[in-house]
């Protein structure tokens, strides 16, 4: 990657989002979908952190929590150390300016009744009220130029554009408020192969020029490897493995990461397969398996995998794995100490081991 990431910009600590399942006449809570469970991660300035996993793993909910489009059941999201979940008024508006989304479907994420210009200018009306009409239009033209569209597009309508062009408009709209952090939720998944490469290159160029931090949510692991500095692998609401993109892809540790990587069809007819085929489906999120959530499909499952929650532990090389195969001598349900055993915490990664899980102070 071209940029060297800086200090942590945004992080979450012990982040959980549970959805109650209500049934019966009085809407009694009969169960909970643990969409995101006890998630701790950070994204640095100029860094691409990717969340990967299958549908229902909680990656999109995490993205929404980072944008405060959703409030957590427990845990916090901190932008430069300030909790965004309790922000109000001016502080919240400032946060909204700094954190912007780019969505998957360029066909439904643009208002068909607004011209491209109006869409791109809309954020400026709120965040830069002093700007004149002409000033806004100039800025919108600049933003379109930044994303590879010419100013002639300002007065055109979304339906006149192809998927790739619309995604450029979506990016220009997101960049209009001069954000530092962008949540890109499957931002290239709906695009055709030939156009996807253009948008991937554009995302990287913009990061280099503007120092953007991306939380990149995707299921296409080849795209993730190409774009990311660090990667987190989610399964049923839990972070199963986290590490630098190169290390994680060349030497996946968690059995789930391995299976996920080996499931990708390799565009090389000569390559050996050696595929790990997982049996069955992802279990239902309202009834996750006890202990390790992956154990019902895991080729390496052992009896004690079901006994107690498995902790996400830092390894010697700075990666983190939630698996009994890696350094968890005994399944210890006690969360004593600071989460990771001494000597395994990583220097220079603030917020990794220390603030741990004094969570649940914030319940919505």
């Amino acid at each position: 990657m071209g940029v060297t990431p800086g200090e942590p910009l945004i992080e979450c600590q012990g982040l959980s989002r549970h959805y109650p399942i209500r049934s019966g006449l009085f809407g009694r809570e009969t169960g909970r979908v643990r969409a995101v469970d006890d998630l701790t991660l950070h994204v640095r300035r100029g860094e691409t952190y990717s969340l990967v996993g299958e549908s229902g793993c909680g990656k999109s909910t995490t993205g929404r929590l980072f944008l405060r489009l959703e409030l957590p059941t427990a845990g916090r999201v901190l932008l430069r150390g300030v909790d965004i979940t309790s922000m109000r008024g001016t502080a919240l508006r400032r946060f909204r300016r700094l954190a912007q989304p780019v969505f998957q479907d360029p066909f439904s994420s643009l208002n068909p009744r607004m011209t491209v210009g109006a869409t791109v200018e809309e954020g400026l009306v709120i965040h830069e009220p002093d700007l004149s009409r002409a000033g806004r239009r100039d800025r919108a033209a600049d933003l379109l130029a930044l994303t590879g569209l010419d100013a002639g597009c300002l007065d055109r309508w979304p339906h006149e554009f192809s998927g790739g062009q619309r995604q450029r408009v979506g990016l220009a709209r997101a960049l209009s408020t001069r954000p530092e952090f962008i949540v890109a939720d499957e931002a290239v998944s709906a695009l055709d192969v030939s156009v996807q490469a253009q948008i991937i290159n554009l995302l990287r160029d913009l990061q280099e020029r503007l120092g953007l931090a991306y939380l990149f949510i995707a299921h296409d692991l080849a795209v993730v490897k190409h774009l990311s500095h660090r990667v987190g692998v989610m399964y049923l609401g839990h972070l199963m493995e986290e590490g630098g993109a190169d290390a994680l892809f060349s030497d996946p540790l968690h059995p789930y990461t391995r299976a996920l990587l080996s499931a990708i069809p390799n565009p090389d007819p000569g390559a050996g397969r050696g595929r790990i085929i997982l049996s069955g489906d992802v279990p239902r999120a309202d009834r996750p398996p006890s202990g390790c959530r992956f154990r019902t499909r895991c080729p390496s499952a052992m009896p004690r995998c079901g006994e107690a929650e498995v902790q996400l532990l830092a390894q010697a090389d700075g990666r983190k794995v939630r698996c009994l195969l890696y350094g968890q001598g005994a399944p210890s349900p006690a969360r004593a100490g600071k989460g990771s055993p001494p000597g395994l915490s990583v220097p220079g990664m603030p917020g990794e081991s220390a603030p741990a899980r004094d969570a649940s102070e914030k319940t919505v």
Partner: protein
Amino acid sequence: MVWKTVSDTRALSAGPGVSGPRVPPPRLEVENLSVAFRLADGAEALAVERVSFRVDGGETLALVGESGCGKSVTCLALMRLLPVPPARLAGGTVRLSGRELTGVSEPEMRAVRGAAISMIFQEPMTSFDPVYRIGDQLAEAVLAHNGDASPDETAGKIESALAAVGLPDPAGIARRYPHELSGGMKQRAMIAMALLGDPEVLLCDEPTTALDVTIQAQIVELLNRLQEERGMSMLFITHNLGLVAELARRAAVMYAGQIVETAAVADLFERPLHPYTAGLLAGIPRLDRRVERLAAIPGNVPGLREYPPGCKFAPRCPAAREICRESAPPLADRGGGRHSACHFAETAAEAAWA
């Protein structure tokens, strides 16, 4: 060098290197198939233009291309499932094991569909009727081709079909409604339904695109196993080059309604002979290698109305020259069972994305 224009689809076979000592008979032969669509303003446009290919017994041909390239329309035209109008078969022939299908009546076609040739679709979520049990929907397929089947016989057929695609508790699955099955299970049930008539040819239209990768791997394994067991031919439509490499022996690449290149899969990936194929291969990020920047094909896939004169890929092709914008290159024989529709096939593919 004189390039021979393809007039005979037999020329599109895998070539001497790939076909073994015993050449199986052609299962599916499509020759110069063209499909026109009437547009809203009354104009007509060709969505599929002079498409020719053949699928041999027991082999898988991948039809590769991006959205709107005509790969699904080709498939639906083979099954005669396109609504007429707005669609119209504008020319060409389809032969199934030597039998001409283009002229046959609708009742005859109904006897072929689901029996000799069958199809599975991309969306397992919408391919089943949500208000009928899985078993009842499969029973319909059994009774359509064998009206005399007794209820017991039908149930037995359905259960063995569901078991054959690896579904646990087939009798239980047959009693369930589609929404009670996961995406992967639904796609398995869909495959079971398609195989009820014991088809010679299975058309697969992006059957794994809507599924998660671990489930996709299961379905790919299943299709490979079923094909081996039954000696069935498959036409596999996809935009995923990884799947092409894993599933197919030969591939045909489509762009803007035409086949622009055909080759054995190994040759195609090793040395593409069309700049579009080369661009597709250079534009996908890969797990097994590292590049700083992807080679991106500029511009967008043209819409039906925007097809340029000459070579349809010319406006996006870095190697295009004057002649490319004037005359459309024919899909010409390049030897070794390969065909490419490019004026500069030997050089352009390599030069274009260097």
